């Protein structure tokens, strides 16, 4: 932890970075800290409880625009960063990425895309037992019961869009729910339009989602919307292989596609 503090202070001091996106102790759990001074950097922490996906701040132009930035990246944040690099939302070398490699050797700074990708290959992904348990339980439900489950859960959604705000991959300047000419999805809370909203949100993540679970963790009503994303990731991987570098499976096109209706 002290290693992180001194490294960040050094980078801030030498103006190699203007801003460091890390964690500080929060009310109950670690929370994001955007440190621009050595004084602020003294509050930094980085341990196994620091799991929130800080990559969400990397596409906030008002925060990071024109700045040299460093970030403390958990495993899933690293995955998001890799996807953001693939989607040209980040430039290689523009962000100093601090991670904790699994070899236990302590803090490491990742500078290149290759290093990030290699880390993702080598480090074990934190387990998703809880999510897998949910998926199993839901899949075992008969179709009518499954429908009732999702209708009941999503009937509660009040469209605060915390799930969208917490997602590093939701960086559109205008979301489809806010397009009103024509209006694709009704923007007020009601069971059917809430379902449309979540289906749209998750479909737009196909092949892009890092499976970090930030959407579900952000929902103030505790709706398990990350489970939909988790299942989608599983299906995309089964059908299209690891998404690495291939982008959104619903919008990329290859002349060699095995389906001929597309040609």
């Amino acid at each position, binding site marked *: 932890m002290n290693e992180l503090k001194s490294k960040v202070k050094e980078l801030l001091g030498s103006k190699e970075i203007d801003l460091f996106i890390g964690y500080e102790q929060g009310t109950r759990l670690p929370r994001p800290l955007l440190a621009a001074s050595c004084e602020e950097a003294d509050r930094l922490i980085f341990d196994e409880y620091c799991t929130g996906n800080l990559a969400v701040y990397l596409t906030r132009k008002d925060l990071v625009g024109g700045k040299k930035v460093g970030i403390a990246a958990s495993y899933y944040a690293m995955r998001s960063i890799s996807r953001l690099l693939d989607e040209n939302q980040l430039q290689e070398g523009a962000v100093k990425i601090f991670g904790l490699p699994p070899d236990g050797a302590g803090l490491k700074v990742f500078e290149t895309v290759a290093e990030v990708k290699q880390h993702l290959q080598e480090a074990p992904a934190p387990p998703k037992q809880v999510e897998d348990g949910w998926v199993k339980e839901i899949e075992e439900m008969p179709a009518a019961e499954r429908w009732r489950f999702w209708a009941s859960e999503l009937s509660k959604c009040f*469209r605060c869009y915390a799930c969208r705000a917490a997602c590093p991959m939701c960086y559109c300047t205008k979301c489809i729910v806010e397009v009103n000419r024509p209006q694709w999805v009704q923007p*007020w809370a009601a069971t059917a339009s809430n379902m449309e909203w979540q289906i749209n949100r998750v479909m737009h993540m196909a092949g892009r989602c890092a499976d970090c679970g930030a959407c579900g*963790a*952000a929902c*103030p009503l505790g709706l398990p919307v990350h489970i939909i994303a988790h299942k989608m990731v599983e299906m995309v991987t089964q059908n299209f292989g690891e998404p690495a570098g291939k982008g959104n499976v619903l919008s990329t096109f290859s002349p060699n596609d095995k389906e001929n209706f597309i040609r």
Partner: protein
Amino acid sequence: MEQKYIPKSSIKAWLTSIKDDGKHIYAPVAENGKTHFKRVKSVDEISMGHVQTAQSAKGMVFPRTEKLFSYVRQQGDVALQDYDPNDIPCSTVVFGLHPCDAAAFKPMTSVFNWGSEDKPFSERMQRVALVSISCSKCDVFCFCTSVNGHPGSTEGSDILLTAIGDDGYLVEIITEKGKALADKHAEFFEAAATCISKEEHLAPVPVKFSAGEVQRKMAGAFEGEIWKKQPLRCLGCGACAFVCPACTCFDIQENAKGSNGGDRMRCWDSCGFSLFTLHTSGHNPRGAQSQRWRQRLLHKFCYMPERLSVRGCTGCGRCSRACPVDMNLSELLNEFELI
């Protein structure tokens, strides 16, 4: 104010009788680790193990989505169908809300009926009775006592129950509405012992800041750096506003049904959304999250007290519990005292 006593064993029977009279009962129901206000079919569904429900009770009078009126286009003319209060359940009892939720009906009323009466809001208010329960436990996010509230405050409630030990509740009957609910089923109530002191049965909610001092400091700090510093991590979602019992912002939307007619809808909105003040020209007078954060706090803690003599916050702590990035409101308000 009249005081009575009700044994714990009679509470369910009393509520069941109210339900059998044809009233709707909304109460806290636990589901997947959160507690929500729901219309209950049986009083056995009610759970009171929580510190705070995920949402407040404001949806009873300010639903997240409401049809204001409908219109039909006929041969070059438009026929309007006004808001129909008959669509509202004729009588609803909200049971088990805490004093910080009941207190929020005052700021809501001040906003909706400011200048002219808001019909949907007022029609709903008339039909709702609030049977609150004093808080016997609190958590690190509660700060009612810093904003003139109290875990045993009667403000806003029609009846307030306070658990006295494990066996029963002190019943404080505050309004005519409350009296009617208790008198109709007088058999469940007993006389209150004269020696009951409510205080010792309430949660110890510490005072965290002086609201007067915070208001004074905020009012003088419009250009202060603090507004930029505090919300750096804020994601600009609507979670804090939507769970807040005293937030009243709404959006007007159109539920067009082809070109022949449609409904005009009112739905919840948040001053934290970047779209909230975006003009059609593309200009946004509150283009940065720091400006939106400033608006949120100044509105609650300065503008409302100045103009409506009521604060836009009752200290329920929901915004802080709901925030995905731990914007702990009492902690942040505390920082204003120090500037």
